[in-house]
């Protein structure tokens, strides 16, 4: 069973087209194993991305060094998954 301990989901808000292009570049960096829940398309729309623990630092440095604003939507994905599992187990009981 794949676990998601330490995975975070960030909401990124690009302020212009240039930043969108930077995020699109980030999408191409396969070694980071990012999972874009909402892909970068326009500054009007947020970008949500699940980031494995091992890539967190690199992504945050990338965003901060390019002055791209972000916030943490899900602090630890596994915690939310565990809650979902518990809710399902309770319901089954």
């Amino acid at each position, binding site marked *: 069973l794949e676990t998601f301990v330490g995975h975070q989901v960030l909401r990124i808000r690009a302020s212009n087209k240039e930043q969108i292009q930077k995020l699109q570049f980030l999408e191409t960096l396969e070694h980071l194993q990012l999972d874009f829940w909402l892909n970068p*398309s326009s500054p009007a729309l947020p970008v949500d991305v699940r980031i494995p623990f091992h890539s967190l630092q690199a992504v945050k440095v990338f965003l901060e060094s390019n002055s791209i604003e972000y916030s943490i939507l899900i602090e630890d994905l596994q915690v939310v998954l565990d809650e979902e599992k518990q809710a399902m187990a309770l319901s089954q009981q």
Partner: protein
Amino acid sequence: RERSSSTFNYGTYHSLTSIYEELDNLAHECSGIVSKLTIGESYEKRPLYVLKFSTGGTNRPAIWIDAGIHSREWITQASAIWIARKIASDYGSDPSITSLLDKMDIFLLAVANPDGYEFTHTENRMWRKTRSRNQGCLCIGVDPNRNWDAGFGGPGASSNPCSDTYHGPSANSEVEVKSIVDFIENHGNIVAFLTLHSYSQLLMYPYGYKCTKPADYAELDSVGKAAASSIHSLYGTTFEVGSICTTIYQASGGSIDWSYDYGIKYSFAFELRDTGTYGFLLPASQIIPTAEETWLGLKTIMEHVRDNPY
């Protein structure tokens, strides 16, 4: 084991087996208007079941609804099951649904990607793709919503089999997609194609593979806005309306682009709750509210389809 829906809890998420049992229950309990068809099987040989809602007649105009093509979007499969029950129970009591079903059929595919759904329950909750093998590559699966024959392989789809948006080796390479295409083509009288996804609260019409307006732009936009307003009326959930390209991003090989280009004018994609707080892990307490509001949006579109034959 006795067939009965009385113990089925619509307010929680279910395994594939449990959902399939409930489809059987519905077809059994409402056999006057509901029947279960098998339109094919998945890569791993799981059946693709469609519920047919019909009051008779042959080859009537019909509405197609599917859910869960991206397997991790559990709220869509759950909403589809609730909606199936709603259609069956409203026939004969809700004049709108009664008149609709007296005139047209509805086909509902509640789990469009059963292999992926099973995989999310057993191996990887975040799995989105099919489970087909890619020759010469360790990475598994194709994004089934990049695999349709509509601008296949264009912008917004990946040629990398390890990507979550991998378009596959060719259009319709995924048996799950091909089964739907074959069913719709063989039917020949599908007049609306509605697909349920999550999340981000959007209601979209073509196109995604190109950023030009569809020929029926004005009508689709107006129907979409009316549906979004219906959704909003229940719990205040706000849906943005527009084409895939202008609303989210350019994405090729999507289902509603194929259906629209095939000639199905009323082609819409829903992106259900939420706006990011839970992602694909929407709390079970929100399943029924989501299904309820989605149902209102679907109903608005279906009523328009009923009243505007083409």
